[in-house]
């Protein structure tokens, strides 16, 4: 493997890497920085790459280590992140003005419920312990095998399975309790509420039937519903989709709110 090989192959998974890092850090800037740092580090260490894993796995390993270095010093978010951030947003006129401006002027300013489902997962999954967060993203969204994740995170395969099992169950419990799309008693309706604000002429119910997870809520097991939720994330590139700019604006708002909230709770 040469430096030229890396240069030619890196762009083929650069988008996926950036998407993974955004969902891990909840910061577009951090994701961008770590992608660049990963490339530089991979170039510097290319002689040590022995082909024991694929180049993609090796690159994700470098990126994961860089992300862990950044995130270890940061507190994890609470499960109620979206409630806390909603309260803040309701009192933040500037946030809504900017969001409406993006909605009206940007080609990536659409509001789509499925995009918000992905956004919601990004926020709530930051309540998982860091190792569990990494494992669930790599396995459920970026389709790495358990063996590859073990290589990326320098864990045993058994430990990867443990983290995956625990993280999946935690996320399923949270969504079972909160998400009104899969549970009529669910306490969170933010996706349909925001749809009403950004798409006032659209009927949320008509949009929801287009989303298999919502349409099948009463017929599928919680594992199957979680897999359908993951499929939504697999299909979306959070930087390239038609709703990317609006969702990134919302994500940055939540990140700032969490930063303040967590520093005040010290």
């Amino acid at each position, binding site marked *: 493997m040469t430096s030229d090989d890396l240069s030619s192959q890196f762009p083929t998974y650069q988008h996926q890497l950036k998407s993974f890092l955004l969902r891990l850090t909840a910061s577009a800037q951090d994701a961008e920085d770590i992608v660049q740092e990963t490339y530089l580090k991979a170039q510097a260490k290319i002689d040590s790459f022995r082909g024991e894993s694929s180049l993609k796995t090796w690159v994700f390993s470098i990126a994961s280590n860089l992300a862990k270095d950044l995130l270890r010093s940061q507190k994890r978010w609470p499960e109620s992140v979206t409630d806390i951030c909603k309260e803040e947003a309701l009192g933040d006129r500037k946030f809504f003005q900017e969001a409406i401006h993006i909605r009206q002027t940007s080609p990536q300013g659409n509001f789509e419920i499925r995009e918000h489902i992905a956004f919601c997962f990004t926020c709530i999954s930051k309540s998982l312990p860091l190792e569990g967060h990494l494992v669930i993203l790599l396995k459920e969204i970026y389709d790495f*095998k*358990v*063996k590859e994740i073990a290589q990326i995170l320098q864990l*045993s395969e*058994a*430990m990867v*399975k*443990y983290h*995956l*099992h*625990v993280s999946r*169950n935690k996320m399923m419990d949270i969504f079972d309790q909160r998400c009104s799309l899969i549970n009529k008693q669910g306490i969170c309706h933010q996706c349909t509420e925001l749809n009403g604000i950004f798409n006032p002429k659209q009927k949320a119910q008509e949009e929801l039937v287009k989303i298999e997870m919502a349409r099948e809520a009463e017929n599928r097991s919680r594992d199957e519903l979680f897999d359908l939720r993951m499929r939504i994330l697999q299909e979306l590139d959070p930087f390239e989709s038609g709703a990317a700019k609006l969702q990134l604006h919302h994500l940055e708002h939540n990140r700032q709110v969490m930063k303040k909230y967590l520093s005040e709770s010290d």
Partner: protein
Amino acid sequence: MNQQATTTRKTFSRKTSVQTSIAADPVIVWALLTHAAEYPRWNSTVISIQGEIKAGATIELKSTLDAKRTFKLKVKEFVPEKRLVWGDAQGSRVYSLEKSGSGTQFSMSERIGGPLFPLFAGMIPSFDESFDRFTADLKKEAETIQRSKK
């Protein structure tokens, strides 16, 4: 080998033991035994464990055996994937793991006793049923994880 819990009684002590074969890597069994916050999700005998299960740490355990009481326990031994011991002045709970093929031979015991044991022995409930449930829950959860998708 799966055995039901048994208790042996002496004048100044009591010891309950149980053992079972678990078709899961010791890494998984160890992870389940040492992630305190996760216990209530898989273990029907534990209401909560506060604190971190690591060498020398103190944890606060609430058990279904006596839901009103919080046990403050010290982690006395912590040998990854082999042996975990926690307890207080009255007694110690010992978890032992031994790799057996691709699985784990698991045993758990608790000895309580001391000079005043005869005075309060009658007030301490039997651990047998709780031990059986603990090991059954551990076995079920560990084997589910072991079988999970690749």
